[in-house]
Structure formats: C-alpha cells, structure tokens
C-alpha cells in the first residue's frame, strides 16, 4: 500500500505518519513537540493526553463541530484499523513464502551428500591411472633425451670441421661480419680442444681469420673517414643557419643577443675549406671513392638549399636572399675545385632555380596579402568613426599598397638581377621570366581576390588560403566601392607604371621560348581589371539598391492600400530612403572622382524634355470624370511617348560620383514604380503616394545629376499609382504644400535630412 509516490492528500499522509511512528522504535524521532503545536494537533504524538484533548475539544468547538469531529475521528479510526489489518496480512504472506523457500532448500540438500562421495571416488581413480602412465613412460623418455644430447654434440663437431671452408666462402663474398660471427662462436671449443682433436681445423680457421682482419682494416679506415666527412657536413649545415642569422642581424638588431659575434662568416668559410681539404685527401687515399663523395657533396648542396627555402618562407628581402646565395655559391666553388667530377655548379644551379622561383612566388603572395590587409581595414573598423573618411583612407592605403608594393617588389628583384654572382648571372633569364609571369599571375589572383572580397564569388572559395578571415556575408558596400575604384586605379595607373618598369629592367628573358611571347601581357591585365571595375561598380549599385528595395518592399506589402486612411503626413519611408541615398552619396564622394558631365547633361535634357509628359496629366486629367479618364490617359501616354524623346533610364554607369548616385536613385525609383504597380489603392492610398513622391522631388533633384530622368520617374510612379487606384482624385495643391511644409519643419528640428 505504501509504494506509490504520488502526493497523497493530507489525511492519507497523516495516516502514514501514524503507522510509521507506530513501527519506529524510537519515539523521539517523531518531530512534533507537543508544546509547540496546537493541542488539537498533538493527537499524533507519543505524549498525547486524551483527557486534555477531550477537554480542549469540548471547550473550543460547538456541537456541530464536535459531531463532525466525531464522525471524522470514527472514520479515521476505521481507516487505521484497515491499514493495520493490511499490514498484518502482508507480513503474514511474506512469512508463508519464506517457510516455503526453507522447505524447498531442505529437500534439495538431502541428495547432495551421495553425489559428493561419488565424485571423490572418481577423482581418486583418475589419479592412480595417471601415476601408472607416468611410470611406464619414464624409461623411454630418459633414452630419448640421451639421444638428443648426442645429436647436438655431433652437430657441433660437424660445424667445427666445416669452419675453415665456411670462412673461406665468407671471405670470397666479403661477408666479414658473418665470418667473424662464426669464428667467435667456435672460439671456446678451439680453446678447450684446439690442441688435440681439432688441431687442423683450428689452424685453417686462424689463417682465414687473419685474411679477414687484413681486409677489414682497409675498409674500416675508409668508412671512418667518410663518417667523419659526414659529420663535418652536419657541422656545416649548422653554420649555414648561423650565417642566415648573421644576415638577419643586419636589419634586425634585436637578435644581436642571440647570435654571438664570434662566429663570423670566415668561420664558416674555414670549415668549408677544411671539408674541401678532407675531400681532397680522401680522394688521394681512396682513388675510386668518387661516387660516395659526389653524393656527399650533393647532399651538402641540397641541404643548403633546403635551409634557404625554409628561410624564404620567413619573408625576407632579396638582400638577405642574396647573402645566403652568395655563401652557398662560395661553398660550391670551393668544392668544385676539389671535386670537379660532381659538376656541382650545374647541380646547384638547378637547386637555386627552385629556390629563386619559390622566392619570387612568395614575394607575390606577400604582396597580395598586404593589399588584402589594407583593404580589410575598412571591414575591421567601420564603426570607429574617428576618421572622417574611412573609405577614402582605405582606398589611398590600398592604392599605395598596390603601387608601392609592386615597385618595391620590382626593386627587390632588381637587386637579384644586378648582382654579379655567378649563380644569378646564369639564372637571369629565368628570373626575368618568373617576374613577368609572377606579375601576370599576381594580377589574376588579385582580380579573383577582389571578386571574393566583394562576395560575388563565394562559391568556390575553399581553395583560397588568404580569405579565411573574411566573412563573405558581411561584405560592406563601401568595400565593394573601394575595390571598384582600386580596379580602375590598377588599370589606369598601376599597370602602365609596372609595364614601364618591367620594360626598363626586366626585358629580354626568352627562356620560355619565343612562341609563347612575353609572359607579362599588360593588355590582358588591363582588360581584366576594366571589366572587374565595372562589375564591382555594378555590384555596389546592386547592393545599395537591394537595401532600398527591401525598404520599399516592406513599405508596400505591409499596409492594406485599399483601406488606407487619409494622408496626414509624409510617410517615414521617405526619410529612410533619403538617408540611404545620403549614405551612398557620402561613400561615393569619398571614393569616386567628380564627373565633368554635369552641366552638359543638364542643359541637354532641359532642351529635349522641358516638362515631363506626366505633368499635364496630373493637373488636368485628374480632375476630370472618372470613366473617361483611364482610356484617354493610356492614349495620352502612348501619344506622349510618340512625341517625346525616350528618357534613358538605364544609361551606362561611369566611375564618377554623379553617375553612380544617379544610377542608384534611378533604379530605386524604378523599383518604387514596380512596387506601386503591384498594389491597388483607394483614394487615400493614392494621395499618400502622391504626397510622398512630391516630397521626394526636391531633395532627390538636388542630389542627382539627371534631373529630367528623375522627374520622369517620379511622375511615372504617380501615374502608376493613379492607374492602380480605384478612385484617383489627387490631393489639392494647397493641402499638398501644407503637408510638405509640415514635414520639412519637423525634419529640420531633430535632425535635418534635407540639405
């Protein structure tokens, strides 16, 4: 009964407490101290006084309560009785099952004794049998063991007898190690029996061993010398390292403490000289050991260049590289004197080719990294508005990074070319090609990188190591604009400069073969960057208009235009729109040059489209009766279009402030028109649009170059709204003016939006 844990009602809980206190041996464990509690609650404690309880009850309660108490108590008593009974039953059941278990155990245990006895008997008989087998086989085993011993002995004797012949064979095959092993194995036997039974054998073996000893002496000398040479090679390697450190010192004084001055270059030279001397001596002693020596020397060169490559990875200037190459070349020349068979110069030329190529490639990688860093600074601190023109700063920095970086790189390579080191003189053609190729590849990579930074090419970016830090989603529109302008800069300024520089000092080459032409094709690069510049500019405009589109989409899809209320003020999306266009203007003014088209375009458009065709429509047609209007309106539209020069909405974008702003605003207004066309308006909705557009007119025209087009587009929006309106009655001009004035006043107070 007490197994379930569900919360019991008070009564049942009290019941349980009662029962448990009944069973618990220690009465003090009941927590209720009677004095503390009301006497009526003391009924459950051990110190319960029935008389007192009764008195209290009678005193405190009226008859009805007493009767109820009586009924309650009777029921409780009854319940307690049943519970007690249940408990007894339960315990009784357990007792009965325990008795049963004991009975079963007793009956089972009776048969067991007999079985145990049987088991014991069987084990005894097994033991006696095994003893019998053991004794009967004992004699035979003894015999076999003896035979085995004899056989081993005989084998040894055989070995001794065969030893001289075997030693002879080993000498022939020059397996001296084996021979020595055999001989030392046989030594103890010779010592004991050498004077008697195995005399002949012993003598023959000793002779053979004497031959071996003689042979071995020559060989080991050679091996030891070689080893020594190798050791000195290891030393040399270490010293190369030091040389590098020394050359580092020249521009990094902080490392002075680390490298002691006591190891000048001459120490290295001395040790190389020593090495060369050793080789010379070695050759004199062992005339036919060239193969090994050549491998050794080549090994040295390879190690040198491996170190160089490691070194190159640490971003060094070509002066440092030159230092290292010079040292290596000196070593090589030294060794060539003593070991001209190795053709070490050619060998090291090959290795140097790799190293220099690596160096060129690394340099370009670093250049790319620098430019990318300069660009990403826009991303890092867009909010730190301490600088007034963060975009401009970034653009200037990256321009400098491109031009100055390229010039530095070229200068660096010039050093390589101008050096008269024999190694580099031979590599000159290669270097020229590599540099040209490097620039070609570099600009291609830069273009790729631009696209990547602008977020246009976020698809196959996994193989780009440089871009790990860039979060493609969070590309700033400003960055795209900077990239666009940088592309133009590269196309118009950087490439010609670099071409000039290359032509001046890196012409020639030709190791690539004539059919391929020069590796650096400025025309192609220019083309790439021109298209990149256009693409990026478009992308910028796209990003900007997308933002406005989202704004407009919200504006037009949210309200129910058919049930629009009368316009009370200019809607706030206009503010947002103007803010956005202002932001664009701000970015654009930082980056792009001013166009010179302004005056020209304006006068042009003034001539052709004096007042847009929509104007008469707005003034006259709207006030006419409803039924006739739409038809004549459409007709009028067509007619107007026939007679009017088509306003070019989508003109080519140029890299000028005005062009970009105009294009963006045009695109946004076109979007506005399209959104309007998708809705249906009631009169008030139409009037709201009319009001908003009217308000936009002035500030937009102020900021935009192509006034005619803007006027046209704004009118188009109003026309579209009137076409999509169930009851197109425009606002009266005075009301329109008043609302606009109200808005102007309001917007001037907190933060002026209109200039």
């Amino acid at each position, binding site marked *: 009964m007490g197994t379930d844990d569900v919360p019991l009602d008070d009564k049942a809980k009290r019941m349980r407490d009662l029962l448990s206190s009944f069973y618990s041996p220690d009465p003090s464990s009941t927590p209720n101290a009677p004095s503390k509690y009301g006497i009526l609650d003391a009924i459950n404690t051990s110190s319960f006084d029935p008389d007192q309880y009764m008195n209290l009850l009678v005193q405190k309660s009226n008859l009805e309560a007493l009767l109820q108490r009586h009924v309650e108590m009777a029921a409780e008593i009854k319940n307690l009785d049943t519970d007690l009974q249940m408990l007894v039953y339960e315990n009784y059941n357990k007792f009965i099952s325990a008795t049963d278990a004991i009975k079963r155990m007793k009956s089972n245990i009776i048969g067991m004794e007999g079985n145990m006895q049987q088991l014991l008997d069987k084990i005894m008989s097994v033991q006696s049998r095994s003893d019998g087998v053991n004794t009967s086989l004992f004699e035979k085993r003894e015999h076999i063991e003896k035979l085995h011993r004899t056989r081993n002995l005989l084998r040894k004797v055989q070995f001794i007898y065969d030893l001289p012949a075997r030693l002879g064979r080993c000498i022939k095959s020059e397996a001296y190690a084996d021979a020595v092993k055999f001989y030392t194995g046989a030594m103890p036997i010779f010592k004991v029996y050498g004077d008697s039974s195995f005399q002949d054998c012993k003598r023959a073996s000793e002779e053979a061993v004497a031959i071996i000893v003689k042979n071995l002496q020559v060989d080991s000398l050679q091996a030891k010398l070689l080893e020594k040479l190798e050791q000195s090679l290891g030393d040399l390697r270490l010293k190369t390292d030091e040389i590098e450190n020394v050359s580092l010192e020249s521009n990094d004084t902080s490392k002075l403490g680390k490298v002691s001055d006591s190891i000048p270059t001459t120490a290295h030279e001395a040790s190389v000289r020593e090495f060369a001397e050793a080789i010379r001596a070695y050759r004199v002693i062992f005339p036919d050991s060239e193969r090994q020596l050549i491998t050794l020397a080549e090994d040295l060169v390879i190690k040198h260049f491996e170190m160089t490559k490691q070194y190159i990875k640490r971003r060094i200037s070509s002066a440092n590289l030159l230092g290292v190459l010079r040292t290596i070349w000196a070593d090589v020349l030294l060794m060539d004197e003593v070991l001209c068979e190795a053709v070490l110069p050619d060998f090291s030329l090959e290795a140097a080719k790799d190293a220099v190529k690596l160096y060129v490639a690394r340099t370009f990688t670093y250049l790319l990294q620098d430019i990318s860093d300069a660009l990403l600074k826009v991303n890092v601190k867009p909010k730190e508005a301490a600088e007034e023109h963060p975009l401009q700063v970034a653009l200037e920095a990256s321009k400098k990074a491109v031009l100055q970086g390229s010039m530095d790189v070229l200068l660096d390579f010039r050093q390589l070319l101008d050096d008269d080191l024999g190694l580099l003189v031979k590599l000159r053609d290669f270097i020229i090609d590599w540099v040209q190729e490097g620039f070609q590849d570099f600009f291609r990579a830069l273009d790729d990188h631009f696209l990547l930074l602008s977020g246009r090419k976020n698809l196959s970016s996994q193989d780009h190591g440089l871009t790990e830090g860039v979060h493609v989603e969070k590309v700033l529109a400003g960055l795209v604009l900077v990239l666009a302008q940088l592309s133009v800069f590269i196309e118009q300024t950087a490439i010609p400069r670099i071409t000039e520089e290359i032509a001046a000092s890196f012409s020639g080459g030709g190791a690539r073969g004539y059919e391929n032409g020069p590796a650096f094709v400025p025309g192609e690069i220019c083309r790439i960057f021109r298209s990149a510049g256009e693409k990026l500019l478009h992308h910028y405009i796209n990003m900007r208009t997308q933002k406005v589109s989202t704004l407009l989409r919200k504006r037009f899809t949210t309200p129910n235009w*058919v049930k629009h209320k009368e316009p009370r003020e200019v809607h706030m999306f206009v503010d947002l729109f103007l803010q956005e266009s202002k932001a664009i203007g701000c970015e654009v003014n930082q980056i792009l040059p001013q166009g010179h088209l302004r005056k020209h375009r304006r006068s042009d458009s003034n001539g052709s489209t004096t007042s847009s065709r929509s104007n008469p429509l707005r003034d006259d047609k709207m006030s006419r009766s409803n039924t006739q209007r739409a038809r004549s309106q459409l007709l009028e539209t067509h007619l107007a279009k026939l007679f009017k020069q088509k306003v070019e909405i989508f003109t080519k974008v140029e890299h000028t402030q005005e062009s970009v702003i105009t294009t963006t605003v045009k695109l946004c207004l076109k979007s506005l028109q399209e959104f309007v066309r998708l809705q249906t308006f009631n009169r008030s909705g139409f009037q709201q649009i009319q009001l908003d557009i009217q308000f936009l007119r002035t500030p937009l025209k102020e900021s935009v170059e192509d006034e005619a087009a803007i006027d046209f587009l704004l009118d188009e929006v109003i026309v579209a709204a009137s076409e999509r309106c169930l009851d197109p009655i425009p606002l009266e001009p005075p009301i329109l003016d008043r609302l606009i004035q109200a808005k102007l006043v309001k917007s001037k107070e907190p933060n002026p939006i209109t200039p």
Partner: protein
Amino acid sequence: MQGGSSGIGYGLKYQARCISDVKADTDHTSFITGTLSLREENEVHLIRLSSGGTELICEGLFSHPNEIWDLSSCPFDQRIFSTVFSTGESYGAAIWQIPELYGQLNSPQLERIASLDAHVGKINCVLWWPSGRHDKLISIDDENLFLWSLDCSKKAAQVQSKESSGMLHYLSGGAWDPHDVNAVAATCESSVQFWDLRTMKKTSAIERAHIRNANYDMKKKHILVTAEDESGIHIWDLRKPKIPVKELPGHTHWTWAVTCNPEYDGLILSAGTDSTVNLWLAPISAGDEPNSEGIAESPTQQADPLLNSYSDYEDSVYGLAWSSREPWIFASLSYDGRVVVESIKPFLSRK
C-alpha cells in the same frame, strides 16, 4: 515605334501583364492574353500568327469581368484557360471555356467552367501540368497551396487537398515540374519550396531571397531556372540545392520572368522591368559541377551567354511565352499592352 525591329506587334486596349501560349492548338501558333485595367471592362484576346508568319490576327475577343493578374492556357484543350483576377479589393480564380462557334456570334461570352473559390487571400497563380492531359490543377495564394481535381465535362472543380505554406512564408508563385506530376516548386519571399503533391509536404527548398519567377527545363530533369529581383538569373540543379549551377547577369533592373525553350537545350528567355527581353544561351552539360566552376568559368566567359537583347519596348515586360508549336517563336507583352512576337531563328545558327 517599329524602329527596325523584326518583331510583329499587336496592341491591346489596356495595360496587361500576362500572355500564354495556346499549347493545345496544334494547327496554329496562337497566344492568349488578358488585360489589366482596374476601372474598365477587361478583355481576353486570342491571337494567332498568320500562316506566313508576318501578321498577328485577333482570333477572338472576349470580355472578362475583372482585371487579369494571371492567365494560362490549358495544355490539352485549346478552348480552356484559367485566369486569376481581382476587383481591386478581392481576388478570384476561374477556369473558362471559349464558346464554340464564337466566330459567328456577335458578342461571345466566355463560359465559366469552374470557380476556384476556396481562396481567402491574394491569389497568385493557377498552374496546369505542362506535359499533357492531367485532371489536376494547382492554385497558389499568399499562404496556401491547393490541389484541385477538375472535371471539364461536369464543369466542376473540387479541392482535393490543401496545405498551408507555414508561418511567415508568403508564397508568390510557382511552377509545376513537367517531368514529375507530383512535384511543384513554389516561390516565396526567402526561398523556393518544393512540394510533393501526394503527401502535400515540403520536400526541400532552395534558400534564396526575392525570387520572382521560376521555370523548369522542359527537356532536362532536375533543372530549374529562377529569376530574382536584383541578382539576375540562376540555374539550379535540384539535386544540389545549395549552389546554383550557373548564373546569368539578368537585367539592368528587376528580372521579372524567365522561361526555358521547350525544344532547344539551354535557350532561356528573360523579361525585365528595364523594358527589355534577353535571349540567353546557357547549356548545362552533364559534367558541369559547381565545384569545377573555376575551370568551367573561363570558356563561358569567352562566349557571352547573352545572344540578343530585344529592347524595343516602351514599358516593363511582364509577359513572356515560347510557342510550343514553333519553338523558335516567342511572344512578349509589355505593360503598355503591346504584344510583340519575335523569331529567334537568326540566333539558332550560332549554336
């Protein structure tokens, strides 16, 4: 207005948005289009290209009670078509039949076969299964997708099943897979959802914002072309919904409609709000994996995918339809109510 254009023009009385190829008409190349005028009496025009291919003839002119936002012709009966219309305040969708012998009648009335009247919100489109006779119809409104079973002889349409697109997914349109009668793509604000009509459940989705229009490749399975407001045209392989197989730049302003040629591989037409129609050639080869794009990109860059840009329009082009009878002919409809039929034959030779 013709301005050296090769197209054949036809003017509607009012503004219009939608045009559809009459697929079931195997004898003529004809299109059906309807006007969008809020306050006037709207019309449905049945237009036929003359046998010489030099003229557009009005074959039928019917009045339609409300402005038409979507219109599509039944692929197996040339006299049946569906429209989505609006009174300005409420939306409706219906299946219509062009009356027989309409040539002899003075003012023929369209016969309403069925009203698809289970919708509450803004209805976007009605879809027929593009590949032939099928007695089901799909209609899409802002929040729901309905599957109707249509009985033309009994003139009745019943809702077979209905499913809501889920919270905050406002549907805007859709396309029915011509290769799989049970697959439908529905465009919504932030993605393209793919539905299985048997279970009426979403199977997958392409996460992409602001898709205006989607169209399945008629020839190749699993290929879907989408048009987006600002970011042009994307071609998707539905087995790899993460990354588009190809991107086309689209239009200067929004790309409104896109449609694949029913016959020639990789020919895509797009219409935009910059008043142009662009013809693209973007074949998807079998090995055109998205991750090999770096290699595949260079040849496509060399050959400009844009074959031609038809720019002789006065207003945004919303309606676009290939003729399925003569797949080198397409009709386009600009907002000012001008139908222009063009032939792309000069560009076919370049393939």
